[in-house]
């Protein structure tokens, strides 16, 4: 099985430096693209590969790149922002890539910036990922030293200034426009879309924002071609995916597997199944803002997840077992979401706070029968389009599915006036 993204990663060891990375075949793609490909060819290749965003939304990457204005009349400078504000609960895949193989990301940045002709690149790293930031800074410095980044890269006249920005960090910074506002020194509130960042991004200029894992596929696509990339996946969506799993499983962790790997395989083979004494009840397949699912025999990818009412998200699952209170589980998620609301739109800042207080009351045995109707109403009211950005709709995905799947548990809390798990 090919594991291009993690091929250089040796858990417990320091990542490869420039020399080691090059010895392992690194920067071959950067040389190939900058010296022998036109920028548009790189974009076309990525588009043909079918690569879709790994940050959660799954937007076709090549198509996004095409939205950036090209040519001599395009506004300048153009920016590339790498979204490394990995703060989705249960998600730790980007950290693995940055700490395990920072040069892979740097090469990806060079290739991507070249494709869209961006001159400045920011890697937006959340504050807690101090090690990632340190390793990336070192990798960037090495690349600049070697003429692979900075001014006149490889003598082609292409310039790329890569800056690693450690942010104060908020969940909202992971939303691409919140990230741009934070980079500009403003509040990390989302921006109105349209206009989208490729038209009006950082400092009002065309900007491409892509997730770490998404970008890391790019060097391999350039090296091995679009067909190779498409064949990597099991279901035709292209590429590998770093799947993760946490919860009461035997071996929580992250593994690079073909995109479209079955949920059951991830749980039973890679995570080693449930811990002794715990039974599987449901899981959130792609981080805290995806719907619960009970089905295990489903291909974990962009197309098949919606068929069971959830979505791939970040591809890192959180497992709910039979000895954990689902109300408490959801409360924990909603607390996070309410705390991370930026305070811009009413349904989010007020609705989520109300949800949290209601769940707290239920969990503490103070619930009332009408509370479930109130929660149902919030799930309806915090639908996509009703709010300014996707935070609140994402936040009610686990709530809505929990109310559907575990309604009896909620009702028992209210009826018995206590949490039955305590």
């Amino acid at each position, binding site marked *: 099985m090919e594991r291009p993204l993690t091929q250089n990663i040796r858990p417990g060891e320091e990542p490869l430096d420039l020399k080691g990375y090059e010895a392992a075949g690194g920067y071959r793609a950067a040389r190939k693209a900058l010296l022998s490909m036109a920028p548009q060819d790189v974009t076309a290749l990525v588009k043909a590969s079918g690569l879709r965003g790994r940050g959660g939304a799954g937007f076709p990457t090549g198509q996004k790149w095409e939205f950036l204005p090209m040519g001599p009349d395009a506004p300048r400078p153009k920016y590339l922002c790498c979204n490394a504000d990995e703060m989705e609960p249960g998600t730790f895949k980007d950290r693995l890539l940055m700490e395990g193989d920072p040069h892979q990301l740097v090469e990806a940045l060079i290739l991507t910036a070249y494709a869209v002709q961006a001159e400045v690149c920011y890697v937006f790293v959340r504050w807690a990922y101090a090690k990632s930031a340190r390793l990336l800074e070192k990798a960037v410095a090495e690349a600049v030293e070697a003429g692979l980044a900075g001014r006149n890269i490889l003598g082609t006249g292409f310039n790329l200034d890569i800056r690693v920005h450690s942010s104060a960090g*908020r969940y909202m910074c992971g939303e691409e426009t919140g990230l741009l506002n934070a980079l*500009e020194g403003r*509040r990390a509130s989302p*921006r*109105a879309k*349209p*206009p989208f960042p490729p038209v*009006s991004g950082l*400092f*009002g200029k065309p900007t491409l924002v892509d997730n770490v894992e998404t970008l890391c596929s790019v060097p391999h696509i350039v090296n091995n071609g679009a067909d190779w990339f498409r064949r990597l996946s099991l279901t035709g969506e292209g590429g590998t995916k770093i799947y993760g799993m946490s919860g009461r499983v035997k071996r929580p962790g992250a593994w690079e597997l073909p995109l479209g790997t079955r949920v059951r395989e991830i749980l039973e083979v890679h995570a080693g199944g449930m811990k002794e004494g715990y039974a599987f009840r449901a899981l959130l397949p792609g981080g805290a803002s995806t719907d619960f699912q009970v089905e295990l025999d489903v291909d974990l990818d962009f197309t098949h997840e919606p068929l069971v009412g959830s979505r791939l998200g970040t591809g890192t699952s959180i497992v709910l077992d039979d000895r954990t209170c689902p109300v408490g589980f959801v409360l924990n998620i909603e607390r996070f979401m*309410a*705390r*991370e*609301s*930026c*305070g*811009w*739109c*009413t*349904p989010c*800042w*007020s*609705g*989520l*706070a*109300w949800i949290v*207080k*209601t769940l707290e*009351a239920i969990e503490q045995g103070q619930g009332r029968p*009408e509370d479930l109707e*109130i929660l149902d*109403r919030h799930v309806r*009211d915090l*639908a996509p*389009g*009703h*709010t*300014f950005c996707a935070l609140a709709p994402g936040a009610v995905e686990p709530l809505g599915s929990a109310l559907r799947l575990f309604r009896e548990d909620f009702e028992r809390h209210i009826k018995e006036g206590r949490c039955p798990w305590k």
Partner: protein
Amino acid sequence: MPVEVSRATIFVEGKPFEASATTNLLDACLSLGFDIPYFCWHPALGSAGACRLCAVKKFANEKDARGRIVMSCMEPVVDGLRISIDDPQAREFRASVLEWLMASHPHDCPVCDEGGECHLQDMTVMTGHVYRQYRFKKRTHRSQDLGPFVNHEMNRCIQCYRCTRFYRDYAGGGDLAEFASRDRLFYGRHEDGVLESPFSGNLVEVCPTGVFTDKTFKRHFTRKWDLATAPSVCVHCSLGCNTIPGERYGTLRRIRNRYNSRVNGYFLCDRGRFGYEFVNDAKRIRKARLAGHGSTDGDDETREFLLRRAAEAVAGPHQAIGIGSPRASLEANFALRELVGAGRFYAGVADNEWRLTELALKILRGGPARPASLADVRLSDAVLVLGEDVTNTAPLLDLALRQAARRGPVEAVVKAGTPDWHALAVTDLVQDARGPVFVAATHRTALAAVAEEFLLTPDETARLGFAVARRIAGEASPGDLPPELESAAARIARALQAADRPLVVAGVCGGDPAVLRAAAAAARALSNGKRKAGLFLVFPESNSVGLALLGAGSLKDGIDRVMSGEAGTAIILENDLYRRLPAGAADRFFDKCRSAILLDHVHHATAERAGLVVPAATFAESEGTLVNAEGRAQRFFKVCPPPRGVRESWRWLCDFARAAGRREAAGLRNLDDLILAIAAEFPELAGIREAAPPAGFRIHGSKVPRESQRSSGRTSIHAEADVREGAPPLDLDSPLAFSMEGAPGIPPSPLIPRFWRPGWNSVQSVNKYQAGIGGPLRDGDPGRRLIEPPASTSPGFSVDGPRAETVGAGEGLLFVPVYQIFGSEELSVRAPAVASLIPKPVLLLHPDDAVMLGIGSGDRVELEVQGETLSLPAKITAEMCRGAAGVPVAPSGALGLDLPARGKIRTVRKP
């Protein structure tokens, strides 16, 4: 923006309507008269999409029955758009939004200053949210002390972001921000303290609930629906912003904005909003006083007595002169002129200022640049400000220029496809880009934040202005500028020429005729061809232009007439000569004057010296016409009858004239008589007749009521004296009535006494009075422009304006005036809130000059100028130009001095 208004057909509940295609759906629906509730959207601030209250259902096509919820403020109007406001899901969602917003709201309406005109109350009723399901604790905040103007109660906040979007994004303030996040957002300062923006008072009207309320109103609060209101005009500078004063029980309670799309739009400055309390000043002149006799009382008796005394003085053996006032109405000045005769009517203004006022008027009349309105200013795309500190002399002009500074970049964004109402997208795209704004001033001004500013003496400013004019006209430079100013002139000229709507701003307060001529030359040079250049000249006071249009002799000539003994009586209209003359000169004048009669309302040094003091009504108790800097004649109306014994200046003067047997005055019995007489004598002023309907105007036989339909306790107000309901006072001078009875509905725009429609109790009701949101009032904005210069160039102002008249040439240090928004204006300083913000007077000196003069920071220095001695601490700052010292125009500053002028300076004490 002057764009072609393309139209679109939209379908609301299946019915077709015509709407503007350049706006958003909320704006379009409100313009069509639909009620869609909203909070964060504001017509001047655009759409933010934050509150989510304006949700409606949008359908993909005729067949789509499900539709989807969209925010109408974020939805562009496109042809064929199909929406439903009444859709049950949309209604339910809007009610949910209200319920969310009310979750932590304290429900303290009965004790809230906003209650009764609260947009949150209105929207709660409109959405039908009546049953509260939220049962948990509310979040609480600690509120802040934000200074004397604005009260802060954060617990009422609904997090709509309007305050910071106005304060920061629109008005350029830096010390109010949103802090924290989620449901704990805090809008305030980083610590307690006085809000720095001179436009902070607008927070009171921008805030949809009671977070920011009027602190001065709080001190004499009354329920809003019990206020008597009338259309009025601000008297605190020359811009003539339209206001709505509110009165109860003879106390002026507050000032609110009166929308006028050509003038102030939605906003006022803090001087205009909070300066009103001079009307309530305990030291105000309320009784007639005869020197040596004390004050008199008793209405009729006083009146007869005064008439007799005045008649004696005017008709007596000693000829009378009249000294007019730039802060009194056209009618009052005209009545004085009728009383004493045109040849003995003098401007109550310092001589240099008067010369400049006449010059500025001549420039405006001469064209070809049009006198710009504030609306024109807001839409200008390149600006040159010469020698005028507008933030302190005409504050709302500062706010307008801040919009002009963004205009060019905003238009570029609009051209690229982002609509200008989409405030967030525009902000993201515009970023810090600012269009060309250049300011030349003697000291750092607030506009430096959005402008390239040059600190220059008046003489240098004039030369820079002429250099710009010459370059625009394609003439060679006379080479009298240092190289850096030459290149600046070239840059300025290029920017102005490249603009579609360039604007030149100057003013009388700067005090230099050459600067005015330079501004005129630049504006004229710009007005060649198709380009329309605007010219905005700031005048010192609320009716400086009106006084100049009437014409008057210079104060010096009037004084000379008394000093020579030719005249013995002076009738002084609403004026303190100690602000117009050095104290010594004023003292000598009063020593010589046999009989000085003052008509005024505020107490001052002149009142101390006048032999007879006649109590005059303030703007709140009288009506009349003021002409603003744009040349717009605007009528103000009394809110309440004058207190017992007090009368309008024009009424006193007309009565004096009749008592003195002056035939001209025989027919002058009410305001309309005066207006017609003025129009007959001054063709240029004929337009004042159309500034407002005459007193006889009726709507279906009824007058316009000053009291609201919701007025309570009408019959019990004076019950302690008499249980019978007395007849309301008559108002023979206007079509307004001192009553809650009268024509319902919307009166002609100059007569709108308040904005209120059923269901819309807050200031947001102004939507219902406009012909399209943000547009003019339904039957046109109030006021009538009097000065429309010929579009072709008239001779008289060459690019090489004569340089000889530059003031202050000669020996000694040049002293220039430094105006202060709080402190320089005569009336507002009597308002306690304003008075508390008057800065300590200091003399501003550039460090280089200080070294040369051997003056250190904090040294007390003595100035000798125009025969007066002033003592001030020195402040050494690079924010002052080289070669001039700045003297504050304020009490114990330059009041009474005619600056710029040269004089001596010496250190008297080291700190």
